[in-house]
């Protein structure tokens, strides 16, 4: 009988020692700075007038060449779609603006997506992380709500644009971009995670290096993709103007907006 009691005590002590395993969420990098950047895109700070708009346009065109807008937004959008797929499979939240339901079980989680880059081959070769590099995306869900900021690390990630087709035909096109991405990408969601790359809306801050062909350069920039249009920031007059890329360049300052024709290189005040 005493043995039974002792066994009971031992079992109870064992169970009592089984404390909860709590998860510690990682801190998003540069969270405060990213928030400020989002606010800046909504409220530009540069003072624009006809005397300085041409310089701003020239700076914007030079900046445009550094942003790799022909392929980099696609890489990020594709990554976000993969994240959305995984979160949907787990019934996890995908909209940073959605309020969690009250009195329901809430999830706190870290989602990590490791995506082996497709590489430069056309057609794409089998997944080969050693050769083609990878992108590692981290997103956090805090008490039932996805944090708007996700971040990724690119490690020797080889990207081909246009994307390799799967038809088996080898097409050699002079305009094919073969880039290698190394660095940190901070992605701030401006809308729910997309189910289709074309639906993605986000702010991207990149810091690292990008190689195109045999040229490698360090880069640090940011841009927004909103409703299929791209916006980026250009310093001007001690502030920042926001440039919207389209058939024309829209340049928005704190006090005025201009529309610049890239053919005639002239700007007209629009607001």
């Amino acid at each position: 009988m005493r043995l039974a009691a002792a066994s009971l005590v031992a079992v109870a002590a064992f169970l009592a020692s089984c404390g909860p395993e709590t998860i510690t969420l990682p801190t998003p990098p540069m969270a405060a700075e990213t928030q400020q950047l989002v606010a800046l895109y909504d409220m530009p700070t540069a003072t624009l007038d006809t005397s300085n708009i041409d310089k701003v346009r020239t700076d914007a065109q030079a900046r445009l060449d550094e942003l790799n807008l022909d392929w980099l937004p696609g890489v990020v959008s594709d990554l976000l779609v993969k994240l959305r797929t995984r979160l949907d499979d787990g019934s996890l939240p995908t909209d940073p603006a959605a309020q969690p339901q009250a009195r329901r079980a809430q999830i706190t989680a870290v989602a990590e997506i490791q995506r082996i880059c497709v590489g430069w081959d056309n057609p794409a070769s089998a997944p080969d992380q050693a050769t083609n590099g990878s992108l590692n995306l981290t997103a956090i869900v805090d008490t039932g709500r996805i944090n708007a900021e996700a971040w990724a690390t690119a490690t020797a990630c080889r990207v081909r644009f246009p994307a390799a087709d799967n038809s088996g035909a080898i097409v050699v096109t002079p305009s094919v971009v073969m880039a290698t991405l190394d660095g940190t990408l901070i992605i701030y969601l401006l809308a729910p995670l997309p189910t289709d790359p074309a639906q993605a809306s986000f702010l991207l801050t990149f810091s690292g290096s990008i190689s195109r062909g045999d040229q490698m350069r360090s880069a640090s920039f940011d841009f927004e993709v909103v409703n299929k249009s791209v916006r980026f920031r250009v310093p001007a007059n001690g502030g920042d103007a926001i440039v919207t890329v389209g058939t024309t360049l829209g340049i928005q300052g704190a006090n005025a907006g201009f529309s610049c024709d890239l053919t005639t290189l002239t700007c007209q005040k629009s607001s």
Partner: protein
Amino acid sequence: MLAIALAAATLVAASPARAQTAAEPTPTTTPEPAAPPPAPTPSTSTTTTTEGGTTTTVETTTVNGPPAETATVHAPPPAAVPPPEENIPKLDERTAFMVGRNTLKLGILAFEYGILRQLSVGSDPPAWAARAVVDVWVPNVHLKYQILDRDPVWLAVLGAVYYARLDGRQDVSGHLINAPLSLFATFKVHPRIHLHAEGAYIFARLEGSGDLSRVQWNGGAPLRAGQVGLMAQFRISRIVSLTATGRYQFYVADIPFNATTTTDPYTTATVTGQLVPGFRHPWEVIGGVAVLWKQFHMIVGGGYGYYFLPGLDIPNTSRTFVPDLSLAVVL
């Protein structure tokens, strides 16, 4: 929980358990006090006393010497004898009472077989029956051991293991083990009133890969929880009792999970996290009637609160009517 176990150990150490059978009341003969000094003439006297339901008549005849005594004992009518405790069927579900040695109990909430007087083994049919509504088998077994039988206090411990293989869906692979451990303490506070207390620790572990999280999140099963329960049983007749039951979950831990999936040949996704229960302290209150014939037990009742799945002790996620029905045949 630990404190309760330590208290149990102390009680056991202080007094070894004895057989659960209550001592049968036996008729007793009460001797009369010493007779008075002898009288010079023969005389006869009769004394009648009643004690413990037994009537004793003593006739004393004295003839010039020490008195000679004859005693006649009249047994009371059978109906006047209170039923021995052992003959009153015990409520053995969620109490410290046992089903009995070599006794098989087949019920809708539990199959139970008494291996020894103080040890029984069983299984819960509802968990097996879950297969009818969800694509999961839940085989389970439990052991109940009575560690103290010292009227008016009884103590018993019940350990159970529930296993669920979660591979009914294409994107799920893994298993769930749920192991509730309960300590029951029964106190007879009055010949007709028993208090049945319970402390339970529910430990479960979910392991595997794939979208286990989805299964888990929809179920809302706590992986570590502490619950207490109390049932008051008022016996209004030999077989019929009124019961009032309450149950409260005083502790629940967040539920950790980890799932890795490969969504395409280039992409691997890992989700690591924890589920924070939306309501940490579910409760239920139930009133009912227990009818305990020797070979048939029936408990019927109803209440309100968060329904706790019988055996598994997993609470529902919303407040609702709480049914309580248990039917069992005792062989």
